């Protein structure tokens, strides 16, 4: 037992968590005693204890599980374990439950963790739709309902959308650029373990007295300052999820910049890598702002700083500016990696080079730049200075142009291809149509007079779900099916995959389509009940949403059974050119036996004799640029 408590793992983590809680209790007790609260009644000022414990216990868990071991050993001057890669690879399911430095294991950890939270978040949505099936329903009370949609949005944004793309990127990017791993494997492991911590904090808020945080995922002040203790779970949970995001983004940036195989110039990078490069820039610059916004809230709540207390000189609207300065770029964080996935799937499944490769890459960078200039379009009716609406509306419509370039380029990629309409391709094509609808309603929302009417109505709910469900989630499904053979070494069931696509596509439109209409008609969002005039559509939407929920079970069944017993996958079932398909499925522990050499574009489908990468050691003359029978210049 003592040995177990000393070795990194769950036993030590449990012990450390108890220690973390005791530390929180002692610290608050000492501080309160020192500031004149030294009566026995204040000994257990449990709100203060919980607030400190929310920070201390998760950190104690991360220490216990072994996330910091290497650095502690190094800092203490004790012998560090040299990186012998003993932490690489997973040989049983138990290996996924420990700190592992292999990017492929971490990628799977990320993905499984994210999909668990997708199911939890989806389940919360089902409960919400049960409540909304009828006006005046008492399925849950109003406070619980407010908690349901707040946790729903928070989990799906911070524990699903953002990390699931990091999971796919984690698995695929090092393979795609010909690297043995990420640049910082230990940081990679730590950034994964922050996520279940953040998710647990969010979910545990349901057990807090007064219920879960119930101020939406936007947590607008001053309401969030006055809410019960559940709100603190949000403020703290976001810190852990945000820290994870930032670490992974830094890791991606350094990996992509420094670890590309010889010959892999930036304009030979597959677009998934470009997309994650762009996304990581957004994450690194923007995420500190939401961290700041929630630290403000935390300080207001716990210590009475009055940042947002108008009566004490606080500025209520400041919160919204800081919050949206992250949360608008965040919608690109939640879609750009999906753009990358679609580019991979469409090129391979159309058997054609991606149309306008350079414009595809530049438009990603344009979105990164413009993404920081549009945040106040979430605030057209907030009471901010009226003139700000004008420039923000203009930048908002302009950011649609690079997005439009991508859609048109994907369409042109289909032209004169040989389209293999299997499951990943269906999701990619479905994505193009539903995402276009979400993009169009987005342009409408940039129009200030129209936005003044529908802001914060169900029209917004429809728009965000067309973008995040019809957009991002479709790309995630496309990507998970596409790389499933590589990740697991098994093939998925194609027939179930098609069923999954069609049920998702149909029920998604039936669920979120009518929300546009009831929003225009005047139904506000975030309401536990509504006027009788919206009853018919809400019943319809609820029934459709249950269908949508069930369609997800097809996916889960397919993935679980195929992973356990699907037919073995060959290394390159899609005949793709990118490097990850040139190694076995699943890839060897160190990815490549020899560092590959890249000699051409990743998308030269249909070009006779085109080569992207050479896995054999390249002839010494390649670097000097002289001819070799294996090397073909990319035709432009």
């Amino acid at each position, binding site marked *: 037992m003592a040995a177990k408590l000393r070795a990194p793992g769950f036993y030590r983590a449990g012990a450390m968590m108890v220690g973390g809680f005791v530390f929180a209790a002692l610290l608050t007790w000492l501080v309160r005693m020192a500031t004149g609260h030294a009566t026995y009644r204040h000994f257990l000022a449990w709100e203060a204890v919980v607030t400190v414990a929310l920070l201390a216990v998760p950190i104690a868990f991360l220490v216990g599980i072994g996330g910091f071991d290497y650095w502690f050993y190094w800092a203490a001057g004790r012998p560090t374990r040299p990186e012998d890669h003993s932490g690489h690879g997973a040989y049983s399911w138990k290996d996924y439950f420990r700190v592992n430095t292999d990017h492929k294991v971490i990628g799977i950890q990320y993905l499984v963790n994210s999909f668990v939270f997708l199911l939890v978040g989806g389940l919360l949505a089902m409960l919400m739709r049960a409540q909304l099936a009828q006006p005046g329903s008492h399925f849950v009370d109003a406070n619980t309902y407010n908690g349901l949609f707040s946790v729903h949005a928070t989990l799906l944004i911070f524990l699903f959308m953002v990390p699931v793309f990091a999971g796919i990127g984690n698995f695929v990017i090092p393979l795609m650029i010909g690297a043995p791993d990420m640049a910082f494997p230990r940081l990679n492991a730590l950034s994964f373990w922050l996520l279940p911590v953040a998710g647990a904090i969010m979910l545990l808020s349901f057990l807090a007295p007064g219920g879960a945080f119930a101020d939406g995922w936007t947590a607008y002040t001053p309401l969030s300052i006055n809410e019960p203790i559940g709100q603190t779970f949000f403020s703290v949970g976001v810190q852990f999820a945000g820290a994870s995001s930032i670490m992974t983004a830094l890791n991606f940036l350094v990996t992509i910049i420094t670890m590309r195989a010889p010959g892999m110039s930036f304009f030979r990078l597959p677009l998934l890598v470009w997309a994650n490069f762009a996304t990581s820039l957004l994450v690194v610059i923007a995420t500190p702002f939401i961290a700041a916004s929630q630290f403000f809230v935390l300080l207001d709540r716990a210590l009475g700083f009055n940042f947002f207390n108008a009566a004490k000189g606080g*500025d209520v609207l400041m919160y919204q500016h800081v919050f949206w300065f992250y949360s608008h770029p965040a919608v690109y964080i939640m879609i750009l990696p999906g753009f990358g996935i679609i580019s991979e799937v469409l090129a391979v499944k159309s058997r054609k080079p991606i149309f306008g490769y350079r*414009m595809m890459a530049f438009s990603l960078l344009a979105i990164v730049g413009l993404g920081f200039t549009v945040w106040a379009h979430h605030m057209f009716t*907030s009471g901010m200075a009226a003139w700000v609406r004008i420039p923000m509306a203009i930048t908002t*419509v302009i950011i649609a142009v690079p997005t439009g370039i991508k859609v048109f380029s994907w369409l042109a990629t289909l032209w004169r291809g040989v389209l293999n309409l299997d499951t990943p391709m269906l999701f990619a094509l479905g994505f193009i149509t539903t995402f276009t609808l979400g993009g169009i309603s987005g342009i409408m929302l940039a129009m200030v007079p129209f936005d003044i009417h529908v802001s914060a109505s169900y029209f917004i709910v429809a728009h965000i779900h067309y973008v995040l469900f019809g957009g991002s989630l479709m790309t995630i499904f496309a990507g998970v099916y596409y790389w499933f053979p590589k990740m697991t070494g098994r093939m998925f069931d194609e027939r179930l995959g098609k069923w999954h696509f069609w049920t998702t596509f149909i029920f998604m439109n039936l669920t979120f389509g009518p929300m546009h209409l009831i929003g225009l008609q005047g139904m506000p969002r975030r309401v536990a009940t509504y006027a009788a005039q919206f009853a018919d559509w809400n019943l319809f939407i609820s029934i459709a949403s249950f269908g949508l929920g069930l369609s997800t079970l097809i996916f889960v069944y397919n993935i679980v059974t195929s992973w356990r017993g699907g037919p073995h996958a060959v290394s390159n079932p899609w005949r793709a050119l990118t490097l990850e398909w040139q190694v076995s499925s699943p890839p060897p522990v160190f990815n490549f036996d020899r560092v590959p050499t890249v000699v051409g574009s990743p998308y030269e489908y*249909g070009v006779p004799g085109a080569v992207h990468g050479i896995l054999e050691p390249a002839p010494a003359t390649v670097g000097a640029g002289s001819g070799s029978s294996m090397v073909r210049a990319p035709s432009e």
Partner: protein
Amino acid sequence: MPSRRSIVGTIVAAIIATGIGIALSYAIHWFPVQASTQARNTDLLYHVLVIASVPIFVVVVTVVLFSVWQFRMKPGEELKDGAPIHGNTRLEFIWTALPTVLVLGLVGYSFVILHDNEKKPAREIQIGVTGQQFYWSYQYPPSVTGGAPINSYKLYLPDNESVEFNMRSKDVIHAFWIPAFRLQEDVVPGITTHYRATPDRLGSYPVVCNLLCGVGHSLMRSTVHVVTPAQFRAWIRSQLATASSGSADATGGGSSG
């Protein structure tokens, strides 16, 4: 290459689909009744946006469906590749420039509508709006009542007269939304926010709190009554009388009108 006939047929089908889409956009009752001049402007803007959007959506869907129809992998083509087309600078320039012009035109038009909706008229009345968890109250200043100020839970507005709402919050942020007017603005503690409306249709319409303000948010509704100027003056007189008699509470009674 796909046959000329299939391309021409598809273009015809797309044009028909665009026509049907635009016709449908007129057939659907998107909005609640229009009860303000601003509502007429905003609805017109919406219809222009829909008419501009339908062809774009049709083009995208048509290309997807046409490609699925014409370019899908047929049996025996499992190892075939598509045409190695890498790009087309002219085409890429067109689909960058055209959408830019289109969206800038639309946003410019929206600014015209915005300016029109927010223009200060020669004459307008001022009414105070107070939001608090979880109800609205309305303040009629002496300039409107011609006597003492009135505080009421009921919102009466004279028809065809511009009104500026001056909105304050006592606790958290609310949003004062009148869907029939197509107007809303947040009601923010610490500052006074404003918008103006010109009601132009008699009747009673919902007032909705449109920003999550706590556990009672979904029931924070009220009603706006647009009445003739004569009825409005009569209502003000009755409120003044109630207030001066001092019998009933001066607030006009009733929780949410």
